[in-house]
Every structure is written in structure tokens, then in C-alpha cells.
């Protein structure tokens, strides 16, 4: 036994030579992640491979999701060289959603870290398939409170808020000038000021071209929040979108239809069509999410501050009158502690303040998709990309984020939207329309709370 541990000079030189050969034949001078010790003597991080599932990612394409995801992985590699990340994509839509569901809910396998939105986060949390993030108090305070609330399931934060998409009013300054309307000071206006502006901005030019004061896509219900109406009570147990505040909010929306300040096809105007109308100069005020900034930014004829600006939702009785969606990065619950820890670290990076500056350093610089209003510490860096983003970074707290209810899409699409349409068409009064929805909506809410 003593002979085994003894190292003589010959043996020492043999070992040294072996190390020299190994280093010389190695791919780089960087220490391999699998090395057992570092120069400082502390154990080197263990090599870990994780899978990141990202909607709309397609290797080699130029989609925003592909560019930013590749850049994020590249940037993270510099920070954690021992972690290998494989990205798996899939188009937005039911097919990919089903792929996520089957992998996560049925097979308890698939992604280590993934994107999720809205009700999905609840669905996966309820099935016990999400590994809870460990956020410090400082981190909690840094996140947009609305976004953090939307990530909370039964009192526990179950995923990392990634983006929060507030809706804003995009205004065509040329049309405002043509109609003699003053844009809202600092982007703030009351509902009455907004309605008066929309009326003035609805006019027919001498050449017969009709201009409409206001447009929105057909997937919204924002005006119902304007007087403080909310879909649920604070405990998310009772459907309250037929309250007096919700009804008066819908009445304000109906007034826009009655005044004919919106294009006649506003009930079937999908998001792309509504944006096209604004870009074509047919609509003076367009209600769209913050992503519209990128659309206008990509069009050379649109110059922020020159011919377009951004304004808040018109204000009435409610505090948060705009509304928005949220997206999350989630970590799947699994037995492999190394993968889980690596997935959490990566998820934290994806949703943290460091990724923005990291991506900006790349050649060419890449802008990350974390919304300016996502967390306070990230607002500055995203604002640097565009003055409009700097402006909206301070407007995010104005946004009401819909709490996660797994049956929301059914409530919305099957019952709420038709009721809204009936009121906007004048077939039902706002109260009648909203009251009729309440029973079915409460039933679906109860089902979600089971």
C-alpha cells in the first residue's frame, strides 16, 4: 500500500509529460469543463446539457425569436462555459402548444427550461410540473409587480416573468396636424379628450379618402377596464366583469362605435390589418401593444417624434386602464438536480438585467425581447435602443395584467367577445350583454379554481 502512494521522480516526470501532451493536444487553452479541479483548487463546474424550448425558433432563420435566442445562448456560454444549451423550436399555435402539453404534462419530459404564457403557467403549475424559482427580495422588488402577480400560483411564484406587453395608443402626428388636433401632453389624456380628438380626426379628404380617428384590433377588451372594471375579484374567485364599472367602461367603448370614429369593419379587424391601416395613414390613433414600436421602427417613412408618437390609454375612473399580456420563462420539475440548477440559472439570466448589455456587446448588436416594462433594472438598457421604448419604460405600471385563469381563453373567445360585439353593434345594452356572460364565465372560473 505504501508503495502505491509513493511518487518518485521518474513517476512525477511521467505524469507531467502526460499532462503536457494532453494540454498540447487539447482544442483550446481553456480548461475543459470536465476537469476535476480549477487553478484555484475549487471544484470546476460540472458539464451540464439542458434543452430550451422556444416558440417560433427555427435554426438558421431570421425570425426575432431565432436571432435573440441564438444570441442569448452565445452570451450565456461566456458566463457559464460548462452549460450546453440546445434550443428546440416550433411555430406559434395550437400544434406547438400541444407538443408542450404532451411532453410536460403527459410524459413529464421534454424541455428543461421553456417559455410559457397566460393560463399555461397555471396549467403546468397545477400539474406540479414547474420547479419554483428562488428569488431574492431585491429581485422580487425589481420585477414589474403586475407581471410577478401573474406568475403567482397559490401564493407562490412559479416562473420567471419575462415580458409584459402593455397596450398603448400610437398617434399619427401628421393626421393630428391636418385635423388641427393637439397631441396629448406627455402622452396623457382623459377619455373625454380622447373621444373629442377621435371625432375631429374622423374626416373625409377632398379626394374622397376617409380617415378614421381610432382603431383597435378585434382581440381586445381594454375599454372595459377604463372605469376600474375587472374580470375577477382580487381573490380570483368571482366573475366581476358585469359590475357597474365594467358596464360604464363598455358604454364608453360603445360611444366610440356610435360616433363612427372607427373603421366600419372594426369587429373583424385582425391585428395585422389594424396595423396596416395605421401604416397606410388611414387611422389617426391605433391601440396596439408595445411591439408595434418595432413595426414602425422598421418602416423608413415613420420617424418617432416627427410623424408618430406614443400615448397612454385615455384615463377615466380607473387607475390602470391599459392592459397587457405577460410571458414567462419556466423551469420544468425533474429529478436531475444538476440540470434543474442549470436551467434555473439560465432562466434567471434570460429574465435578468445582464442579458441586455451582453447582447448589445455582440457584433452586430442584438436587442433582446424583454419588454422595457418587465423589470426596473432592465428599463434603461432597452430604452437605449429606441426613444419610444425609453418613453414606454416609464408607462408600464399603468398596465393591468390579466391574472392567470386556465379557462380564460374559453371565457373570452366563446362568451365575452360575442357579448362585446353585441353591445358594440347596438343589439344589446352593455349591461344586458355583460350580465348574460356572467353565468357561463363564473362556471368556467369555478372550474379553473378546482
Amino acid at each position: 500500500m505504501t508503495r502505491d502512494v509513493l511518487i518518485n521522480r521518474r513517476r512525477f516526470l511521467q505524469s507531467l509529460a502526460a499532462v503536457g501532451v494532453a494540454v498540447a493536444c487539447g482544442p483550446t487553452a481553456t480548461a475543459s469543463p470536465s476537469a476535476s479541479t480549477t487553478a484555484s483548487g475549487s471544484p470546476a463546474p460540472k458539464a451540464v446539457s439542458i434543452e430550451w424550448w422556444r416558440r417560433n425558433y427555427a435554426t438558421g432563420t431570421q425570425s426575432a425569436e431565432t436571432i435573440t435566442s441564438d444570441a442569448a445562448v452565445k452570451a450565456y456560454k461566456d458566463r457559464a462555459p460548462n452549460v450546453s444549451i440546445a434550443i428546440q423550436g416550433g411555430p406559434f399555435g395550437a400544434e406547438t402548444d400541444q407538443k408542450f402539453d404532451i411532453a410536460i404534462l403527459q410524459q413529464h419530459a421534454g424541455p428543461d427550461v421553456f417559455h410559457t404564457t397566460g393560463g399555461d403557467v397555471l396549467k403546468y403549475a397545477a400539474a406540479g410540473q414547474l420547479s419554483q424559482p428562488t428569488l431574492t427580495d431585491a429581485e422580487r422588488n425589481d420585477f414589474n409587480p403586475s407581471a410577478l402577480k401573474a406568475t403567482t400560483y397559490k401564493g407562490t411564484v412559479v416562473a420567471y416573468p419575462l415580458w409584459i406587453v402593455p397596450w398603448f395608443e400610437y398617434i399619427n402626428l401628421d393626421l393630428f396636424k391636418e385635423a388641427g388636433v393637439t397631441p396629448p401632453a406627455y402622452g396623457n389624456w382623459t377619455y373625454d379628450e380622447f373621444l373629442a380628438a377621435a371625432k375631429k380626426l374622423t374626416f373625409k379628404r377632398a379626394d374622397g379618402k376617409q380617415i378614421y380617428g381610432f382603431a383597435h384590433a378585434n382581440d381586445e377588451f381594454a375599454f372595459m377596464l377604463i372605469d376600474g372594471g375587472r374580470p375577477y375579484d382580487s381573490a380570483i374567485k368571482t366573475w366581476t366583469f358585469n359590475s357597474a364599472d365594467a358596464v360604464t367602461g363598455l358604454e364608453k367603448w360603445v360611444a366610440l362605435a356610435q360616433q363612427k370614429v372607427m373603421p366600419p369593419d372594426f369587429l373583424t379587424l385582425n391585428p395585422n390589418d389594424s396595423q396596416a391601416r395605421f401604416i397606410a395613414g388611414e387611422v389617426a390613433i391605433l391601440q396596439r401593444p408595445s411591439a408595434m414600436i418595432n413595426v414602425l421602427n422598421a418602416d423608413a417613412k415613420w420617424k418617432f417624434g416627427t410623424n408618430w408618437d406614443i400615448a397612454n390609454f385615455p384615463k377615466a375612473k380607473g387607475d390602470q386602464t391599459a392592459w397587457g399580456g405577460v410571458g414567462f420563462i419556466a423551469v420544468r420539475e425533474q429529478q436531475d438536480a444538476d440540470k434543474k440548477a442549470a436551467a434555473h440559472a439560465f432562466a434567471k439570466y434570460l429574465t435578468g438585467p445582464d442579458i441586455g448589455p451582453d447582447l448589445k456587446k455582440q457584433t452586430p448588436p442584438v436587442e433582446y425581447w424583454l419588454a422595457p416594462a418587465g423589470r426596473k433594472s432592465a428599463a434603461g438598457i432597452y430604452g437605449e435602443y429606441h426613444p419610444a421604448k425609453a418613453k414606454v419604460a416609464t408607462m408600464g405600471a399603468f398596465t393591468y395584467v390579466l391574472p392567470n385563469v386556465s379557462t380564460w381563453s374559453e371565457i373570452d373567445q366563446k362568451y365575452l367577445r360575442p357579448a362585446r360585439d353585441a353591445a358594440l353593434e347596438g343589439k344589446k345594452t352593455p349591461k344586458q350583454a355583460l350580465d348574460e356572460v356572467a353565468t357561463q364565465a363564473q362556471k368556467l372560473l369555478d372550474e379553473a379554481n378546482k
Partner: protein
Amino acid sequence: MIATAAPRRRRSLAAVLRRYGWSYLFVFPTFSLFVVFTLLPVVQGLVLSLQNARVTGGEFIGLANFEALAADPVFIQAVGNTVLYATVVVAAQITLALVVASLIQPLGPRAHVFYRALFYLPLVNSAILVAMVWRWIFNANPYGLANTALSTVGLGPYLWIGSSDQALIAVILSAVLTIPGGGVVLYSAAMGSLPRELYEAADLDGASPFSKWRHITVPLLRPTTLYLLVIYTILAFQLFERVYIMTNGGGPNNATITIVQLIYSTAFQFGRYGLASAMAVVLFGMALVVAVVQFRSLRSDVEY
């Protein structure tokens, strides 16, 4: 007698198998594909319709899904819209196909080929593209083609797909105004094989062209009409992409929602596979009943 008949039947079956058994080998691949991709999904759909199935699984709940459908105003509206669409569109398409085929029938062989190709060619277009064109035609704005055309005679503008009163009419019109190329080709081919003697006899009797068409052509085309009626009805019941594209799914106030559109959203947007399967079973039942009624009422022993 019975005792002797049985072995003979067994023998004859054995003989048949000996002689033709190998041919089943050729049928097997197609049959197995049919079982795997058609029969089993249908059976699975029936089973799911009796469960509260979601992506995580489900439990047997008997006929609860069907009871929920009976009480669901959106599903009832979808059934009503589907039936209305099918009734108007199938009647119009068959009439149109018959009339167009009759109009090209007296023309020469070259003209036949030309018109059959002309009417059939649009069918190779993507249904999505066709629906997008119709969306533009029935746009609620004055620059929509229908409104532009009507404005020349002082009519409109109408809201079309932008109104819950007119959206379904616009969808029906988009189907009615599309000449059914498949029907024209089938009727045209069937007319070409009708016996000339009957027309010669009618000529001798002094029958008018319309009278010949009414009393000879139309009755002899019953087998083709029955086939088209069944096929067009099933296709109309499956209406989806036209509604999905033209009216963003269900139109204002669910005015254009159809059964298949609701199956799609129920299964893939709301994740209720059991309920969606129950809707599919109802649709299957509707198509079956209508097909049986059509077969019974139009069945004929026409031979020529």
C-alpha cells in the same frame, strides 16, 4: 341435411381461401392503413366523447358532454349556422353545376374539354387563398369589391363580414358564387353517356329542348345528383377555413361560427378534447342521417 351442408360450406370456404387467399396480401397494406388512420381514430373519438378528456387524460363521464352541448347556446348556434349554410350552398351548387353542365353539353368535344378544364382549374387553388380573396371582396369598407360594384348601381355600402346580420350571408354568397367545378365535370361526363335514342324519340314526339332536359336529362342524372348531394352536404358540414379566414373564426357575435370551427377551438384552444369529440360525434350523426335520407329519397334503379 344440415349436417351435410356445414362441411360443404367449410370446404367451399377453404377452397376459396386456397384459391384467392393470396389476394388478401395485396389488400392488407391498404386495409391496415385504413384501420390505423381512419377506423381507430373514429373509435377513439367515440370513446373520448364519453370522457372529460383533456391533455392530461380523462375519466368516463357517460353522456355528460352531450348534455353540456345540448345546453350550450354557442353550440346550438353553430349547428344552426352549419345547417343553414349546408342547405343553401348544397342546393345552389348542385343547381349551378347542373345548369352549367347542361349549357356546355350541346357544344363540340373541344369546347367540352376547354370548359371542363376552365371550371375545374380553380379547384386546384388553395382554399385559404380563395377565402382571403372573398374576405377582400366582402370587406366592410367602401373599397371592398362587392361594395365598389354595388355602388355603381347606387347600392350600399354594406357591412358584410363586419356585421353579425350580414356575415353569414357573405360566407354563403362566397360559396354560392363559386362555380362548383367538380360538379360540372361529373354532370358533364354523365350527360355524355346518356342514351341518344331517348332524345331521338323525344325529337320525333316534338319535345322542346327544355322539355327534353326536364323529362330525360334530369331524371337520368339521379345517380350523379345523389352522389353530389351526399358529397357536397358532407363538405358543407365540414365548413372551416372559409369562416376561419373570412371572419376570423366566428365573426361578430359568433354570427358565422360553425361546428367544425367550434371543434377546433374547443380542442386546440380550450384543451377540451372530450367535449370536442362529442361535437364531432354529433356532426358525424348529422351527416349520417342526412346521407341516409338522401339515399332513400333519391335512390333509383336507373339503367341505360
